[in-house]
Structure formats: structure tokens, C-alpha cells
């Protein structure tokens, strides 16, 4: 079973059907009232009320002059009606009316935890791809310089700017401010932030939908995704309480860190314990130097020794996230962990089914394709309910 070639023509239609089923069920999970109420509310558009639910561009959201125009809408100068400019759901904040698109590129907001890839190095700052319409910038003044947190920036730091971050490097950072034009300014002034290593990168849909599908610099989106259109569904990383957590993996994988960037970029890596990381480079470090140690290792591009078991579990986690994205399920700690547990369970189920010899069963066993991914999705949806 080395190669799975082609579910041919017929199969091509079935998944489509499946997908719409999936996304429908997800839809109804998330906004139950919405799909139920949609039809009657629409009918009342003329009656000076606000249409809720889904609107399409050009559709009159309301004629009522009491509402204020928000994002995703416009007004003609001659009338009071507010008209949608994007396809999405209507949101009301007090008297402000806005339409949130179902699918859009990531729009940075202050405080977002994001993962970005350095695409350009300038004299005093980096340009970072964060899957937003514009490149974010990371000024040299917004990073922790090595050798102590309170050190002043010098001209020699400017000259050796590439030793901190260079083209292609991945950084985890926080959005410090958003400029007028919507571009973000990042900072890494915390021990949590810095250069990423010891793991794999994934680009999925970010907040508000797919940011990844048209990005040219992304690493490799959805190599496991079965259905191209699926990633444009409701799935993707959502802003949540915890964007970073540690998984205690099975199969001897040890601890694995997952960082979900709000922009849809994800990093899964071997757990780096601050103290352990420091002591792995030098023995007996005094506690006062500890902080200093950690802050310097954030510019390392050397991977630690990572056991094959850990690598395997990292790959499994990455695939679980892909499965979620294909299925149009939101990606957060709960669903990722659900999918991870489900994938272990599915493995057991499959293992019971097959009585072939060890070797052939092992072959490609870790690949979560078609049937397996569907099963995982089912389990996750059940679990989340």
C-alpha cells in the first residue's frame, strides 16, 4: 500500500458533498441562531430593521437611519440605507453596523500573537510576512538585544543585523501597534518571543479566514489537504485565550510546544524549557545569569537533538491541524487536542482491523489520508459538542 493513487472521477464529487455537509454542521455549531433565523429576517429588510445573518455585496443591510456605518459597508450620499460591500455576517456594536467577511486575509490587531517569516532585512528593521495584506515591520529597537535586556542599541548592532534575524527566519512576536495603512509593527521584547527552531511550520487560515492561500512566501500550506476549496471555509486559527501550550505526547514523544499564530501560521516544536535550554549549552549557570542565557539563545539557528519519537508526534500534530483545516473546523487548543487524541484512537482502530505483518502495517501508517481524516473529524466534532 505504498502509493495511494487516485480516487477517480466519482470520488471527486463525493468529497465535495461531504465538505458541504461538514461545513454546514460546523456552521450550525457556531451560529445556530443564524442559520435558523436567516430566512424570516431577510424578508423583513424592507421593514426598516437590520438584516442579520449573511449578506452579499450590494445588499441593503438596513434603511433605518439610526445605524452608523462600520467596516464592510457603504452608504450612498442620497439615501440612508447601509449597503454591504463584502460577503459576510452582520455585526452590531451598539449603533455601529459592520459586516465581517467570512474569508479574508489576516488583519493585525494590537496584542495579537503572530508568527512571521522575515522576508527582507533593512538597515534598522526587518520586514516580516505575517499573512496580512502588507508586510509587518519589526524594528531593531523592538527586540531584546543579546547580553542583557537593558543594553542600549549601538551602531554595531545595526551592522550585524542579520545575525539576529535573517531572510527566511521564523519569528514569534506580538503586534505592538497597527499603522494607519493597516500594516503592523511587531515586537519581541519578551522571553516568550524570538526565533523559532526545533520544529515544523504550518500555514493555515488565520483569523477571519484564509490568509494563506494567496501568500507567495508561505512555507507549504496544506500538503495533506484533500480538498482545495476546503481551506476557505470557516476553519482556521481563532483568537483565543491560549495560543501557546505544551502537549504531553504519547508514544514516547515527550513534551511538544504548539504555537498558534493568530495570523494562521503555526509552529510545532520540541518543548524548550527555558532553564533546560540554557543548561544544555553550558553547565551550571548561576541563577542571575539565567535570564541572560535564555535571551541569547533566542537568536540561535541550531537545533537541539530531537528524538525520532518526538519528530513523529510533531508530524502527527501537524497533520491533525491539517485535517481540522480541511474539515473547516476552527483551530484552537481544544480542537487540536481533540484531533490529536482522535488520531491516536483511529490508529488503534485501524491497528485492530489489520492483521497484516508488522512491516506493511507500518508503511505509511502515519499518513492521515481520506478515511482516517474523516473519522478524526467526526470524533473531534463529537468531542467539541
Amino acid at each position, binding site marked *: 500500500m505504498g502509493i495511494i493513487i487516485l480516487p477517480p472521477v466519482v470520488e471527486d464529487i463525493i468529497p465535495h458533498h461531504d465538505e458541504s455537509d461538514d461545513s454546514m454542521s460546523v456552521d450550525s455549531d457556531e451560529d445556530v441562531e443564524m442559520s435558523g433565523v436567516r430566512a424570516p429576517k431577510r424578508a423583513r429588510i424592507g421593514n426598516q430593521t437590520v438584516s442579520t445573518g449573511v449578506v452579499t455585496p450590494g445588499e441593503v443591510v438596513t434603511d433605518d437611519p439610526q445605524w452608523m456605518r462600520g467596516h464592510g459597508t457603504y452608504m450612498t450620499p442620497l439615501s440612508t440605507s447601509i449597503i454591504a460591500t463584502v460577503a459576510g455576517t452582520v455585526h452590531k456594536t451598539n449603533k455601529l453596523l459592520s459586516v465581517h467577511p467570512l474569508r479574508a486575509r489576516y488583519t493585525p490587531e494590537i496584542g495579537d500573537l503572530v508568527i512571521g517569516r522575515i522576508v527582507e*532585512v533593512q538597515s534598522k528593521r526587518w520586514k516580516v510576512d505575517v499573512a496580512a495584506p502588507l508586510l509587518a515591520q519589526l524594528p531593531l529597537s523592538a527586540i531584546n538585544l543579546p547580553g542583557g535586556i537593558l543594553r542600549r542599541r549601538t551602531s554595531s548592532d545595526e551592522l550585524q543585523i542579520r545575525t539576529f534575524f*535573517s*531572510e527566511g527566519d521564523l519569528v514569534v512576536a506580538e503586534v505592538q501597534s497597527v499603522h494607519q495603512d493597516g500594516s503592523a509593527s511587531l515586537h519581541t521584547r519578551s522571553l516568550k518571543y524570538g526565533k523559532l527552531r526545533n520544529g515544523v511550520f504550518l500555514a493555515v487560515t488565520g483569523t477571519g479566514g484564509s490568509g494563506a492561500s494567496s501568500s507567495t512566501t508561505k512555507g507549504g500550506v496544506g500538503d495533506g489537504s484533500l480538498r482545495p476549496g476546503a481551506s476557505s471555509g470557516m476553519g482556521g486559527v481563532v483568537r483565543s485565550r491560549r495560543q501557546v501550550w505544551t502537549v504531553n505526547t504519547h508514544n514516547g514523544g515527550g513534551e511538544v510546544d504548539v504555537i498558534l499564530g493568530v495570523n494562521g501560521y503555526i509552529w510545532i516544536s520540541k518543548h524548550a524549557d527555558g532553564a533546560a535550554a540554557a543548561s544544555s549549552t553550558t553547565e551550571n549557570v548561576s541563577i542571575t545569569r539565567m535570564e541572560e542565557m535564555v535571551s541569547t539563545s533566542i537568536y540561535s539557528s541550531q537545533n537541539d537533538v530531537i528524538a525520532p519519537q518526538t519528530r513523529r508526534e510533531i508530524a502527527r500534530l501537524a497533520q491533525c491541524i491539517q485535517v481540522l483545516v480541511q474539515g473547516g473546523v476552527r483551530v484552537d487548543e481544544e480542537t487540536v487536542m481533540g484531533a490529536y487524541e482522535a488520531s491516536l484512537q483511529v490508529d488503534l482502530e485501524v491497528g485492530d482491523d489489520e492483521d497484516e505483518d508488522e512491516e506493511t502495517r507500518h508503511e505509511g501508517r502515519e499518513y492521515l489520508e481520506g478515511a482516517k481524516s474523516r473519522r478524526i473529524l467526526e470524533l473531534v466534532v463529537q468531542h467539541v459538542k
Partner: protein
Amino acid sequence: MLRANSANTQDFRFWALDVSDNFVYLSTFHVKEIKMMADRRRINGPPGGTRPAVFASNLQSGTSATDRAQRQRQPSELRKIFLKTGLIPTASGSSYLEFEPSASLAAARANPKSLIPPSSALKLACTVHGPKPLPRSAAFSPNLVLTTHVKYAPFAARQRKGHIRDSSERDLGVHLETALRGAIIAERWPKSGLDITITILEAEDDRWWGSAPDSHDASWGMMNVLAGCITAASAAIADAHIDCLDLVAGGVAAIVSDETTGASTGAPKLMLDTDPAEHRSILSACVVAYMPARDEITELWLKGDSSKASLENNDDRTGHEALIDGAVDAARGAHTVLAEAVRESLLRTVGQI
């Protein structure tokens, strides 16, 4: 459904245009393609072109079997290579390479019977410009950025080549780039670019000129040209003092089936450094770029059916393995010339000081 009543493709195409909409799409597609390939900067001649007059007397004499070029070398004997570096003063590195004319060509030159030379011998010049800074608009590169251009001079082959690079020339450029990039140590030259330009002054024939043009149309001559390009470019890079792991040399081997070679049978045999004009039928050929010091191949291009090769009895290699090994042997031969040429030019400069 399709019934062609017109002799000319062009006519056929427009005839088809009338018939159905589906045809329109594709025919316009091809018209567009033709336009893309035309050179907009020059006044182009008529697309058809004309054939030069062929005189019957030449033809008759040319087609007699005795005039057909024949391989006089042993199967593992290589042609002599003339290679000299540093001939172009404006370039940071340059080289000129020439293959020894085949025995029949030498004979024909000494004692011309026909206007048409029986075969051709490769001649090419290579220039290296750089390392030089990348243009401001270019993105940062931690490595040396290599670009290769291979161009046939219009008069290089029997059929005139145009001034713009055609697909075979671009293809050669890609092959050459692959071959060289493995050899140069690119991280020694960050943020800089290196342009390698090869002009082919005389190309190897793809077949004996007198054979029917379709007899073996695969471009075997191109493989010899590539091998020459690799060797010459390697010499020019060394001449430009760019760090490289080893001098990378090109070599060609082929599996040929000639009545003349295996006297008794036409069993396909492995030959090194084949001149396509000297062989009736080449079944398979292979060109490698090889670094002897590391025993590594940076570029491999093999095509044709190598499964029929008759090897020695105690040889349990498969056809393609034998072919690759043969090409490597040819490259080793070229490497000795290459090393000698580079050393020679070095001694020359030292002598001047």
C-alpha cells in the same frame, strides 16, 4: 470527422477554424505561441524560409557509402581536446575549447572531394563575468547567484540558428547551471552574481548530414555540446579564480548499434565520446558532469533505451549503469586536459611576473 484536404498545416488550421468553435481556441493558441517566439526587435524574414540549392553532383558523391564518416577510434578512445584559458581580456575568466576533427573530416579537409564537410567538430568559447555585485533591485542572497547562457552562433550548425535563444539553447543553459552550481562554493561569495556565457562557434551534428533528416532525430549532438560546455565553463571559472570543489568535467558515452562496429553482429556496444556523424544508430546516450576528486556527479542527462547494450559476460551492470560509468570515464579523460590547461595558464601568468 477530420478530413484533411490541404497540404499545408497553416491552411489546415484555418480550415479548421471555420468548422467548430473548439478548434478556434487551440488554433489561436498556437498563433500566439508563434508570435511569442518571434523577435520583436528585429525585422524578421518570412517565416517559411528557403532551402539552399543542392547540386545533384554533390549529392551523388555525398551519398556514396564510402564518404560516410566512420569512427576510426577504439570504443574507449577519446577525441583530443584543445583547451586554453584567458583568451578574452575583458572577461574575468574565459576559455576556448575545440574537439579534434574526426579522421574523415581531417581527410576531407586535406583532400576535398565535396563541398560539404563529412562531419563537424565542436568549437566553443566561454566567458565568465564576475563575481560582481547584484543589482540593487535583487533580493539578498547568501550565495553566489549563477546565471548561464548558452547560445549557438547563427552559423554554428548546418541549419542556421536565429539570434534569440530557442528552447534547446535554454535547455542547455539549465543543464549547465545544474552542473556548475554543484561545483562552485557559492557561500564564499555572498551578495554577488556570476554570469557565464557560452558561444558555440561550431556545433556537433546530430547525425550524419547525408542521412535522412528523420533517421535519428533525437538531438545526440546536443549532449556532446553540453559536455564541451561543462568542461570549458569549468576552465573559465578556474580562470576567474572562483572557489570550486573540483574542476568539473563533462563526458559523453553512448550505446550504438552499427553494422560496422561489431563485425559479425549489430549488437549495441558502449562507446565513449561518440561523434553522432560517425554512427548509424545511437540507441542511448548519456552526458555527465563529474568531479573526480569527490567521485560525484553534479549533472546527469541520460536518454534513450539502454537496456539492449551488450556488455562483457562478467559484467553484471545494467545498461544505464554501464552507460553512466562510461560517461564518467570520458569525463575523467576530459578532466586531465582541463587540469593541465588550468595549470598551464597559471604557469604562464607566473612566468610573466
